[in-house]
């Protein structure tokens, strides 16, 4: 399934809400949480991480992973949390609006 423009940022922020993760961990988490529906290309995820970091919404730190390997872990910053709340309400409004239009689909069938 393709992602809507700008949705990836929101998904990443949402994923980091539960705790810090490394890049590959974020990709895996999104995939499993969406029941494998959203297979995020790492090639798009990684630049998104850098972009979010540059905007100050996430911060990174080298830590030891579960397999005792060094990896860069990303966590949500306060600014990122605020942004996520905003994006979430916008997203909810959007879904709501689209839902109103799309819902009575029975007429088509």
């Amino acid at each position, binding site marked *: 399934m393709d992602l809507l423009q700008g949705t990836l940022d929101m998904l990443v922020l949402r994923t980091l809400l539960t705790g810090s993760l*490394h*890049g*590959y961990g974020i990709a895996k988490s999104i995939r499993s949480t969406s029941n494998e529906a959203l297979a995020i*290309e*790492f*090639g*798009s995820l*990684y*630049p998104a*991480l*850098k*972009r979010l970091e*540059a*905007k*100050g919404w996430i911060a990174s730190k080298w830590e030891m*992973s579960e*397999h005792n*390997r*060094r*990896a*860069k872990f990303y966590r949500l910053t306060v600014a990122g949390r605020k942004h996520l709340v905003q994006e979430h309400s916008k997203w909810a409004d959007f879904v709501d609006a689209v839902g109103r239009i799309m819902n009575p689909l029975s007429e088509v069938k």
Partner: protein
Amino acid sequence: MMSFWTRIKHLSPAARRREELEMREELESLTAIAGGRKELGNLTLAMEDARATWSWTWLESILGDVRYSLRTLLRQPAFAIVAVLSLALAIGANSAIFSFADALLLRPLPVENSSGLFDVTNTTPDNTLEGMSFPDFRDLRDHNRSFSGLTAYRLTTQAVASDPMAPAQIRFVSLVAGNFFSLLGVTPSAGRAFLPEEESIVGQPVAIVSRDFEEQNYAARGRSALGDTVRINGIPFTIVGVAPASFTGLDRFVAPSIYIPLGMSQRLAAAPMNPLEDRGNHILVVKGRLNSGASMKSAKAELANIGAELEREYAKTNRNRHMSIRTELQRRIDQAPQLLSMAKMLMGLVALILVIACSNVANLLLVRARARSREIAIRLSIGAGRGQLIRQLMIESLIVALAGAIIGLWIAYGGILALGMMSVPSDPPSVLGVELDWRVVEFSLLAALASCILFGLVPALQSSRTDFVTALKAGGEGPQAGGRRWALKWFGGRDLLVAGQVALAMVVLVAAGMFLQGFRDMLTMRPEFRTDHLISFDTAPAVLHYTPEQTQAFYRRLIDRARVMAGVANVALTEALPLSPGQTIVTVVPEGFEFPKGREKAVEFGAAVDAGFFHLLNIEIKSGRAFTDDDRAGSRRVAVVNEQFVKTYWPGQNPIGKRIRLDSATGPQAEVVGVAKTGHYLAVNEAPAPFVYLPYEQNPRSRMTLVVESVGDAAGLAKPLREMVRSIDPNVPVFNLRPVATLYESRVTDTWLNFFQMVGAMGLIGLALASTGLYGLIAYTVSRRVKDFGIRIAVGASRRDIIWLVVRRGLMLAAAGVLIGGALTAIAAPLLAAGFPGLGVSSSAVYVFVPLGLLMVSAMASYMPARRAAGMDPLQALRNE
């Protein structure tokens, strides 16, 4: 915001390297965790996208463009050098001339809110810039409603000694009203301004000195000027303040050394009556700031009313006397209208040069854009955007423009140094004060930028529209079939540009030629008076409170002592030497002359001279006689006028025996006994002016010039003369002591040589630029017609045929330019001649030599590429295609 700073941070290569390393390390660790590269997909692309977040793509690509442009420019250094130098010369000349005009006319007064300071004067039918008397000023100050403040001052020269032991020196001293400094918004850099009560005479006299005066006389000797005394005409003044270095007074070219209260006028002159209380003594310069509600127009109306009221009340002193207000710039223009025409002409000439230079560079860029169409086609075909292409071409012309501006400023700086040295050797020194200021820098940057947009955009747009398939096929020649319309259009445009350049160069050259002619006339013009073996100096014993009788006795002793000095052949006394900057005037009413309505007397150049003056200076008496020792006080009053005076007031009549009333229609009468040859009095380029000589004995003056004829070297007499004056009275100041030849040269040769060099340099710059433009176009034409010439040579055309073919084209362009230029000159020349009476004499030689010279230079400029065309191997030329 954050992202902006991240990017700024990443401008540094070190930060970038760090980021890159960290990214690679992170991706490696993730590859290990994920168990292989496959899991993570295309990492190269991911890295590239990630880098974009911290890099400044557009900035980087602009830097790339700059690098590329520099490389291209350096690959064709001839183009770069010619273009940059064209602009540099034009911008340099413009900046230098702008600075010159600035010093002559435009520089604002060094006061707070200078544009809000207006000039208030008396006007009479004879003089629209008359000073105001103090009583008139006081009435105006107390009764007007237009001004929030009015102040007055009077610039004088006085004998100043910073030390009781030192000999007095002549310095500019400004006598100012109490509110002078506060109204101007000038705060002394040390000490205080004048107190309001110091305007009147009571109490210990106080003075404010200029920063320069403090440095020369006090700081240099480790003293502080504050609290010290300075003697002016022997009166001790306590120094209470030092004016800031930026404040040089309200007059151009002269900077007062000392400011003292106006109330000191009477004591300073040791006059029996207070000159300030004399309503007929129009000595003050008045400046004012308008109320917030008033405009110049409303102030003018009120001034007219007040003036009319004063005229009614004081008919004797104020008849035909009115009041007027003007801006500072208007005052300067009214003071010296010839300065305005000079500034206008110089700025007009440099503007022409700027136009020539810009069209030159435009032409070069057009030619280059065409020659580069293949390169551009390649760049377009491998995916360069048109926007990018235009940007790169614009950057290229921007580099040229900026380089031109930088070198131009450097040239301007040199020119300004040369112009800044223009001054007249005099005591106290006066200077022109040309300096490079920030407005000039801004002006040249603007000129560079404007020309960049002007000539950068058009070729950029044009070349980016190139049809690249035909361009690639056609090799370096640019589009043929598809581009024919363009080619025709631009080819015609370029021809027009070059012809226009030649035309403008012709205008500049004719102007320069007219000046050369006038200048040569001036140089070959023998001085109308003798200058060799003469030395002169000024002295003014009146500053020491000599009575008129004492002054006359002093001059008699001066002449007697000088006459018997070793090495002295002869002496004479005059109020002013011809061509010295301090010319004096007389007010006269010539017998039988009908003045136009409203006027009743004439103010003309005039001087009191002694009997030996005409003989010593060799001034020719055309009819009648010169003064003799019999023209004494008490004998019949006489005068000698010059031929121009006769022409003006008694045309066609015999002037000998006619009478002139001096000062006013009721003044003393003098009978004209002789007519002298008309000379030049203030400047060599002045229109012939009437002049009146009066015998010194009948018209004694306090400040005179002693002229001494030496047996040997005139300069050698300087020291003995100074000592001789000291032996009469050590306190009498001696100033402007210099050989007459030195004065003559500085007034005639140096100033005009400078001016001529300026105009001449402009002419040469114009010629150089225009011929470069022509050369560029012809060279380009030749390179485009390589195939054509190859065929011609192959079928038997001789070298001469080819050369003629090319040169003919150059000559035709030049001839077209000369024709246009001739028409332009026909319009411009009378304007020039009118602006510079006596100097801008247009002569037929100029009109012959300038076009001939232009054609010759054009022929040479086209001969060089022509020879290259004729020398080429036909086979190779054809193969090249």
